[in-house]
Every structure is written in structure tokens, then in C-alpha cells.
């Protein structure tokens, strides 16, 4: 079985509710054009136009579970980043995963938190290397990763209390 | 007696000049050599081939402000560079540059050189301790263990030679090696060394030890610029640094002199005594030999990466000391047989 299907199957277990993963792949782009954010679920993306294969949007409390699945399947963490969807009053956190072997499957886990109180669980117990990525995301977006051992500014000065990548940031 | 005293004073004066000029121009040689080894020209702006670089550097060093970091023990901080320079100067007193150019041929000249060489190691300890800098501290601890580890094989190898020549007087040691290169101590196939085939190895050991003793690359753990910034002289500026620098080069000259005297026949001509111009002749050969050795010092420095402290101790305790001990016993036995 190709890893893409395997991953999809494993991640699908996170969505017991079938309607949640209803949107067809074609609807994906439309879903992002629409003002309201797209619903949770897994989408298989066209690699040649998008650059990644699987795209799963999950609830913040499912994060640990999803990341654990990917770790067990042998994925490595490429990066964690945020996107500020100021119109939706939401912050999206994107986790990029890739694989070391030749069974290519780039997987994206994304989750959205409220802009006013951005809290997410940390994934450092699973991916130790997430530590810096989370600190960076905390620097730039102000997202608090609960349980992170050392959430102090990494790239910004030690006393920075601003979050430059927020869309309403004024220098 | 008064003549001897005069001799010593004159010798110290000449030694200071010699060491000063040597240090200055060895720096030039080092930089020029480094340049040529590295596909670049080296110093060339000041004077022809950059020959005026050393005096210019000297002036620069002397005119710079001598910074003393806050909180250091001033006495210790100031005495360290002097300690680095002083033993090297004193050691020149007993070095025979030729059969008649030697300030004071002390009967235990070898011992004296070693005594003062050990003092050189102490200067690093004092400098590192006095600087109140963590890098300097680490460096000085390294320097001490390095000195201890390398004095031993150095001594053992020297004892081998002392056994062969039966004297601790450096002039006498040279006297036993007169006549062409086949009667030098490095040459194994002669009765003098008891046909000990390990003599070249023992020369190598002495050479490696003198590189290590003088804190030169690849054993420059004391200053290890990529790890410890500048090691024991991190906090030194102006002539404090200058003295360390001169001390290093003076030590190199001493190391080279010792190597030449013990193994390469001192001022002896490599093809037997030619007889004419004895004065320049002998000094010339001696200087030629020590500068050849110094060239190898420079060559090695610009070829190899640095060892680590455990690599250095391993080399000393696992290789140099057993081999030199074995060589000592072998030589003793062979000398008894032949």
C-alpha cells in the first residue's frame, strides 16, 4: 500500500463524522475563496500544482493525535508556521511533514485557533525539533503553545512583545 | 671569574638582540612562509618583500594601549608575559653557537634548559589564571597538562643522548658528533650510538616534543583560536601580547637549537671539517641547521589541523613515552654490547 493511502486512512480515523470530510477535492479551492474557512477533513491535493499531497485540517485538540500518527509512520517535521486570517478572526497553524524514503508524500496538518486567544498544545514531546519552530511561531504570531518547555522569543529580541507577522502589526 | 661574568652579560645582551631580531623576523618568515604555502604572496607592502613589516609591527604593538581588564590580579597579570620571555632568554646562555662562541658552557646545560623550559609552561598557567577569563582559564589548564605530558618523552630522549655522549654539557655533546653527518647522533649506523636503528625515530620524538613544548600547531591547544578565541593571551594587548609572541618565537629557536645540538651535530659541518674559516663556518652551519628546523616548524604549522587535548595526551602517553623508553633501554643495552 502506498504511504499516501496509508496516511490518509490513518488520519481519517480522526474524523469519525463522515460529513466532516465531505468536501470534494474540487471544492477545496472554492472553499478557500469563500470568506468562511473550510471545514475539517482531509483533502488529496494535486502534487504538480500544489507541491504537496495530503492536506488535513483538524481541530486543535486533535493535533497531538494526528502528529503522533505521522511520527509513527516515519514522517519528519519540516516546519511549523502560522497564517493570519484576519478576516475570519482566526489564526491558522500549518505543520509541514515530509518523508525520508522514496515513497513521496508531503502531508500538511493545519488547524485554526481563535485570534483573540490563540492556544495550541505543543508537539515537542513527539517531535523534539518542533521546539524552535513553535518558538518562532510564537514570536511571529503570538500563538501560545501550551506545555512548551521554554517559550521565549527565539528570533526576536528577548523582550519582544510584538508579533510582526500579524496582519494588523504596525511597525 | 670576572671575565665569565662579563661574558654572561655580553651573552645576555647579544641573546636579547638575537632573540629580538629572530622573533621579529621569524614572524616575517612565518607570514611569508604561510603566504607561499597558501598560494599567496604574504607580506609585501612595507619595503622589499615586506621586509620592513616586523619593525612596523613592533612600533604598532608598542604604541598600543596596554589594557588591564577590571578585576584581574595585576601583579600576576603583568608578570606572565615576562615569565614567557625570560626563560628563553636565559637558555641562550648555554647554547654553543660554535666551538668558541658560547656564553657559559655550563656543565649541566641540558638540565638548565629543561628547568627553564618548565618555567615557560608556568607562564601560560599564570597568564590564564591572572586573566580572569574563562577561555584563558581552560587554556592554561590545557597548557599545563600538555607541558607535563611532553616533558617526559623529551627528557627520556635527551637522556638517551646524554648516555651516548656521556655529558650534560651541550658543547661536549656537539664535540662527540664532529666529522661528517655519519657521526651525528641521528645516523644509526655508527659505533657511537651502538648501531641503534631507532635513532631517527628518537629524533622524530624529540622534534615532536619540541613542537608540543613550544605550543606550536598542531599542538597549539593553548591558544586554539577557533575554540578558545586566543587562549591564555585573550586579554593581553600591546606589548604584553608582544612579549608572549616573542617568547613563542624565542622558544622555537631554543627548541630548534636543542634538536640540532642533540641530533644534528650542532655546529659540525655535514661533510667533515673543511678547516677554512672556522669561525663563520661553524656559526653558519649552526644557523643554517636551526633555520632549516624552524622552516619545518612553519611548514608543519601551515599544513595540519590542530589536535585535541586527548589526542595530544594519547600521542604522548601511548606512543611517545613507551617508544622513547624502549629506545632508552635499547640504547643502554647496545652501548654495553658495542
Amino acid at each position, binding site marked *: 500500500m502506498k504511504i499516501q493511502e496509508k496516511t490518509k486512512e490513518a488520519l481519517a480515523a480522526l474524523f469519525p463524522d463522515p460529513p466532516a470530510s465531505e468536501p470534494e477535492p474540487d471544492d477545496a479551492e472554492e472553499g478557500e475563496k469563500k470568506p468562511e474557512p473550510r471545514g475539517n477533513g482531509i483533502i488529496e491535493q494535486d502534487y504538480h500544482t500544489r507541491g504537496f499531497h495530503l492536506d488535513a485540517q483538524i481541530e486543535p485538540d486533535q493535533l497531538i493525535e494526528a502528529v503522533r500518527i505521522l511520527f509513527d509512520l516515519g514522517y519528519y517535521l519540516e516546519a511549523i508556521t502560522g497564517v493570519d486570517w484576519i478576516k475570519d478572526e482566526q489564526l491558522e497553524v500549518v505543520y509541514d511533514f515530509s518523508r525520508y524514503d522514496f515513497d513521496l508524500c508531503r502531508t500538511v496538518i493545519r488547524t485554526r485557533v481563535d485570534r483573540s486567544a490563540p492556544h495550541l498544545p505543543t508537539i515537542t514531546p513527539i517531535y523534539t525539533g518542533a521546539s524552535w519552530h513553535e518558538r518562532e511561531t510564537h514570536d511571529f504570531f503570538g500563538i501560545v503553545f501550551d506545555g512548551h518547555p521554554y517559550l521565549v522569543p527565539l528570533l526576536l529580541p528577548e523582550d519582544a512583545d510584538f508579533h510582526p507577522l500579524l496582519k494588523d502589526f504596525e511597525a | 671569574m670576572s671575565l665569565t661574568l662579563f661574558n654572561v652579560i655580553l651573552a645576555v645582551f647579544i641573546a636579547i638582540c638575537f632573540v629580538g631580531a629572530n622573533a621579529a623576523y621569524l614572524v616575517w618568515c612565518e607570514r611569508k612562509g604561510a*603566504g607561499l604555502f597558501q*598560494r599567496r604572496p604574504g607580506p609585501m607592502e612595507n619595503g622589499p618583500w615586506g621586509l620592513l613589516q616586523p619593525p612596523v609591527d613592533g612600533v604598532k604593538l608598542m604604541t598600543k594601549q596596554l589594557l588591564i581588564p577590571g578585576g584581574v590580579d595585576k601583579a600576576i597579570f603583568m608578570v606572565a608575559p615576562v615569565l614567557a620571555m625570560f626563560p628563553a632568554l636565559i637558555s641562550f646562555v648555554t647554547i654553543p653557537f660554535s666551538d668558541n662562541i658560547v656564553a657559559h658552557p655550563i656543565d649541566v646545560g641540558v638540565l638548565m634548559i629543561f628547568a627553564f623550559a618548565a618555567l615557560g609552561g608556568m607562564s601560560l598557567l599564570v597568564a590564564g589564571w591572572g586573566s580572569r577569563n574563562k577561555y584563558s582559564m581552560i587554556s592554561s589548564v590545557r597548557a599545563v597538562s600538555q607541558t607535563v605530558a611532553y616533558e617526559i618523552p623529551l627528557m627520556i630522549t635527551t637522556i638517551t643522548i646524554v648516555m651516548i655522549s656521556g655529558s650534560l654539557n651541550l658543547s661536549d655533546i656537539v664535540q662527540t658528533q664532529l666529522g661528517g653527518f655519519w657521526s651525528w647522533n641521528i645516523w644509526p649506523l655508527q659505533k657511537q650510538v651502538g648501531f641503534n636503528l631507532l635513532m631517527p625515530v628518537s629524533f622524530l620524538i624529540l622534534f615532536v616534543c619540541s613542537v608540543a613544548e613550544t605550543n606550536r600547531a598542531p599542538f597549539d591547544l593553548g591558544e586554539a583560536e577557533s575554540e578558545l578565541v586566543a587562549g591564555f593571551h585573550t586579554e593581553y594587548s600591546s606589548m604584553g601580547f608582544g612579549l608572549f609572541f616573542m617568547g613563542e618565537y624565542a622558544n622555537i629557536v631554543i627548541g630548534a637549537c636543542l634538536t640540532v645540538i642533540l641530533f644534528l651535530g650542532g655546529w659540525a659541518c655535514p661533510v667533515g671539517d673543511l678547516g677554512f674559516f672556522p669561525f663563520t663556518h661553524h656559526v653558519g652551519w649552526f644557523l643554517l641547521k636551526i633555520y632549516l628546523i624552524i622552516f619545518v616548524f612553519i611548514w608543519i604549522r601551515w599544513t595540519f589541523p590542530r589536535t585535541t587535548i586527548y589526542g595530544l595526551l594519547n600521542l604522548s602517553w601511548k606512543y611517545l613515552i613507551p617508544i622513547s623508553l624502549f629506545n632508552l633501554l635499547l640504547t643502554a643495552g647496545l652501548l654495553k654490547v658495542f
Partner: protein
Amino acid sequence: MGGYFTDLFTGTKSLLDGMWVTLKEFPRRPVTLNYPHESVKMYPRFRGHIELIGDKDGKPNCIVCSMCQRACPSGCISLAGVKPEGEKKKVLSRYILDFTTCSLCGSCVESCNFNALRFSNEYNLASTRKEDFIMDLLQRLEEQNR
């Protein structure tokens, strides 16, 4: 114990190999260039700071379309033109390059459709004054015409 002597011999041999390599370099001529006394010839495509291209009469080719200004990522170009009476086209009256923020990316030269900009070959651009890098390119063109 077997490794003891092989280590010793291979080690010594490797050191001698390395010394032979550096010794071979020793007598060779240096490959460096003695910079202030000699200097390299710049390649035709070398990207120095930009300069204006003049036509036969020495007038700038520029038609003040401001494409370069818009293409510049760091906003270091400012230009202005005047429209003399009785003429259709604007004439360049001011072209200032703020070289302190220029990153020599060449976006301006690429965006120019009227062959009015090119890279100069100047590389000796050190100065202690910031004002030296606010360059009046029109003035530069005039000086070149002379």
C-alpha cells in the same frame, strides 16, 4: 595491539602526504592579485550601480515612464520629468539613485523597455560619507558626455 603500529604507520604516512602537498605549493607563484596596484577587468555583465544611457546627442533615452521606480524592491529610485512646452514627450529632469538601499538586483534595468538604463562597471564604491551614495545619475550622464 595490532592497530597500534598500523595506526602509527598510516598516520605518519598521511602526515607526510599532507606535507608533500603543501611543499609542492611552496615554490609556485601566488595566484592572488596585488589589488591596489593591479585590478581585474570587469565582466561586461558585471552589475555595478545603474547609470543612464544617453543617445547620440548625450540626452538620456529615458522617457520618464517610472517603470524602474515601480520595479525596484527597495524603492531607491526617484525620478521626475518635465514637459517642455510644445513637445509631446516628457524630458527627464531628475534621476536620483539612493545606493544605500540598492541591492543590485537589476529589476530596474530589466523593466526598462526603452534602453535607458544599464549597469555601470564601477566597483570602487567605498566612502565614509553617506551622501556619496545618493547619486544623481543625470549629472553622471553629463559628466560622461564631456
